């Protein structure tokens, strides 16, 4: 080990060492006359492969480390600095940078330590897996690609694919003695196939799987789903522009709710960019049978964090019950402004961001649950099944409530379904939430949450017919 690597501050090939990092940080802070600080750190080792028609396309490895240091100055103002340099000089420079930046801290809203930064954490069942060799990952992905290509002669390529594994650690420390540390391994597989028949437009479809290790990935399920989604869209037709009853797949509805999560975000409310306000609590936002909870601790949430960027424990939180807003997502600062406790949804910074973890969407217990017995294949009137939404970053105006999004899906009538060539769905989220018809089928676990199929009335569909 040479001099530079031996001076690494508590981070080495075995990961982060909280005790060593705390000791070093306290020493550096004392020397710089800094009395109050906190730190978020992470390090990870990643390997990933991509293939192209039986050959390795790209093989990647990465060792990453990052820290964010916050410092409170004598006037109580906060400064922050981030760096990937975990050496002693790097940390000293980060502390110095944070102290300098604190001169520009916002006196109107100064973050403080979370009062829950030392509260007990939930125990997460997250088995740690040993990484597979990259050549093993490559062999697995080549085989998966071959199986997918063999499913249908029209599937010519799987242009977007990847098998990745990650070993990571997160750390939160503060000068009041809080110490959070989490180790995690995860793996992911995605297969996105492209199919084309003579004289027809190319079609595509894909699937994703997550697990705690590459050996636990549901590879066969991913191949089945990617194949089914691709092949089922080969026979397509344009759709007439108009208003349709729509059935959102669990994935599509979760995407839409996630894109409008500023409805529940206390940070966005304080910033004036949410459709909600402080007074929205207990107000009717949606149909009276809709429940939305945020629950990062759900066992279906692979890679869940036990604590947020401020060290606050992750916990379940009811956002909507009976269609009425129950709670907002909070950081320490927004919770203080609202007079409630932090909810475990904070990032870290001089201005702390707030975001959701993992949604659970269901019928409110005790409600009628909306229209019963919904079955899109048994419907006589035409309806649109929206399988997946695209371009959410561009087509959602969260502060205005409007959306216009391309989607993959089917036109369904009299039990027959036909893939839609190309179309967008547009509307207003508040109108949509109030216009829910009901739920169909059991809730499905997805990477973003838990949700059944959701029926909505009267959405605008633009086709190319």
């Amino acid at each position, binding site marked *: 080990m040479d001099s530079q690597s031996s001076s690494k501050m508590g981070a080495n090939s075995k990961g982060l060492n909280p005790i060593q990092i705390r000791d070093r940080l306290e020493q550096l802070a004392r020397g710089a006359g800094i009395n109050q600080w906190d730190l978020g750190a992470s390090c990870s080792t990643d390997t990933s492969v991509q293939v192209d028609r039986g050959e390795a396309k790209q093989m990647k490895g990465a060792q990453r480390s990052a820290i964010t240091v916050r410092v409170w100055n004598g006037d109580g103002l906060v400064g922050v600095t981030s760096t990937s340099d975990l050496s002693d000089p790097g940390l000293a420079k980060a502390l110095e940078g944070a102290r300098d930046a604190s001169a520009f801290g916002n006196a109107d809203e100064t973050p403080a330590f979370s009062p829950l930064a030392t509260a007990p954490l939930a125990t997460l069942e997250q088995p740690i897996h040993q990484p597979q060799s990259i050549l093993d990952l490559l062999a697995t992905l080549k085989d998966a690609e071959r199986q997918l290509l063999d499913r249908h002669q029209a599937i010519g390529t799987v242009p977007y694919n990847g098998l990745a594994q990650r070993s990571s650690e997160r750390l939160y420390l503060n000068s009041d003695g809080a110490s959070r540390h989490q180790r995690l391994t995860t793996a992911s597989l995605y297969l996105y196939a492209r199919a084309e028949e003579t004289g027809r437009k190319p079609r595509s479809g894909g699937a994703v799987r997550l697990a705690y290790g590459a050996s636990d990935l549901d590879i066969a399920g991913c191949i089945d789903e990617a194949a089914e989604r691709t092949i089922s869209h080969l026979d397509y037709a344009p759709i007439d522009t108009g208003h349709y009853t729509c059935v959102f797949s669990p994935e599509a509805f979760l995407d839409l709710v996630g894109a409008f999560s500023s409805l529940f975000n206390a940070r966005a409310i304080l910033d004036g960019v949410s459709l909600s306000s402080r007074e929205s609590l207990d107000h009717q936002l949606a149909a009276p049978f809709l429940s939305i909870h945020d629950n990062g601790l759900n066992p279906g949430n692979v890679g869940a964090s036990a604590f947020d960027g401020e060290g606050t424990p992750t916990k379940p939180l009811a956002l909507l019950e009976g269609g009425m807003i129950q709670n907002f997502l909070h950081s320490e600062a927004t919770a203080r402004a609202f007079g409630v406790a932090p909810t475990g949804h904070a990032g870290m910074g001089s201005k702390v961001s707030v975001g959701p973890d993992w949604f659970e969407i269901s019928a409110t217990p005790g409600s009628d649950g909306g229209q019963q017995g919904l079955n899109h294949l048994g419907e006589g009137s035409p309806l649109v099944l929206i399988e997946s939404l695209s371009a959410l970053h561009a087509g959602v105006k969260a502060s205005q409530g409007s959306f216009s999004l391309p989607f993959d899906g089917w036109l369904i009538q009299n039990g027959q379904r036909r893939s839609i060539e190309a179309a967008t769905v*547009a509307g207003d989220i508040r109108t949509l939430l109030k216009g829910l018809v009901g739920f169909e089928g059991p809730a499905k676990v997805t990477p973003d949450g838990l949700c059944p199929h959701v029926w909505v009335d009267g959405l605008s569909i633009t086709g190319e017919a």
Partner: protein
Amino acid sequence: MVLSPLAGGFDTTWRSRLESLLSSGCGSGADLVEVFLERTDHIGLLAEQDTITSVSPAFGMGAGIRVFRGDRDGFVSTNDLSEAGLHHALEQALGMLGLAPTASAVANFEGLKILRDFAASKTDWLQRCPEIQEATGTLLEGTGALERHGHHLQARRGSYARDWQEVLVAASDGTFARDIRLHQSLGLNVLAADGDHRAGLGRRYGTSGRPDDLREWDAEGSAQEVCSSAATMLYADYVEAGQMPAVLANRFGGVIFHEACGHLLETTQVERGTTPFADKVGDVIAHEAVTAIDEGLSDGAFGSLSMDDEGMEPQRTVLIENGVLKRFLSDRAGELRTGHARTGSGRRQGHSFAAASRMRNTFIAAGPHSPEELIASVDQGLYCKSMGGGSVGPTGQFNFAVEEGYLIENGKLTKPVKGATLIGEAKEVMPRISMCANDLELAAGFCGSVSGSIFVTVGQPHIKVDSITVGGR
């Protein structure tokens, strides 16, 4: 205060360390080894209403090592720039190709060439940038101007980002080059609200290689532009969906060409088999009115470079000339795998990404018409004054939000409309761009793709598309 980068920089001592690394890689059986070293220094500022709410400095360093054998490659990135750290990363990259480090004689590495130092004249750039005090003052001028010019404003935001990067590229073909890059960008955003009416709009301005850029920013004019658009759109009706002709304004209107067609002219798409233009060089793929160019040379433009991230000087690449496809954008791997010669387009967000063929400053060239002639040629259609974001799917289908739109009725602009989305496919839309105006302008943007998020410029004059699907309510 200026946050200076890590002390030391990439000085002359790196030559021997890199030659040792490259020699080791080639001696182990690699056909080519490339090392990309990077140091970064970033600052982000946010002003909301009349307060600075976030000052976020960040600095970092890292290396990306790429090993080629045949047309395969392995890539490893690390934050550890020690000799041991770099050799460990190299071993991992070699292992991906089934190679093990050996001390064999090296036949395919003759040492690094003389350093091409594009950074030499840029070493004071960081120090010449505005200090935080000055930058925050300018931002607050911007949000103050929004307040003066706006009506019904519920939120006013100004943001500033300064990204400084020093890179050193060394490869076993002798490539040895250093550069310093500086990008500054400024954004103004407003949310106007009146009862149930809401309009959120923003504009972003950006340059490269101009340390004094922020000092020359017209805060007043920028605020007026944003507020004028917000006032117009606040009470706009939703557009009716359908097929119609459209006139797209200049500057950021070029984002559609960038997304819908430009990406399909990158060799990464040829490799994936996801471009319909792979075998169309020499064929007509667009209306004869269309000439499209990608280059990295325009002074101060966001996508300009002295060298790409593989050490090659950028070229001016004519992609389409009078409707005929002329060539693709290519990087080292693209040349190796598709045969298209490199164009100085190998780009990456940073050391943790392998370079890929990516756009720089991409635009449709000016034509002979005035913008008014384009609008006058449309009976019933849509004028897209300002575009929002968009995306392109794996089958080439694109989708773009129109941030500020107006109906064209009988050759004249009439009422503002919101909620419009332009939908189509490059192969079908390119032949329908029938008129180009004479008012080419460029606009700064960010492009996210296989090698991360990079600084780019999009641009065009006003253009007319004879028929396009407009999504609405």
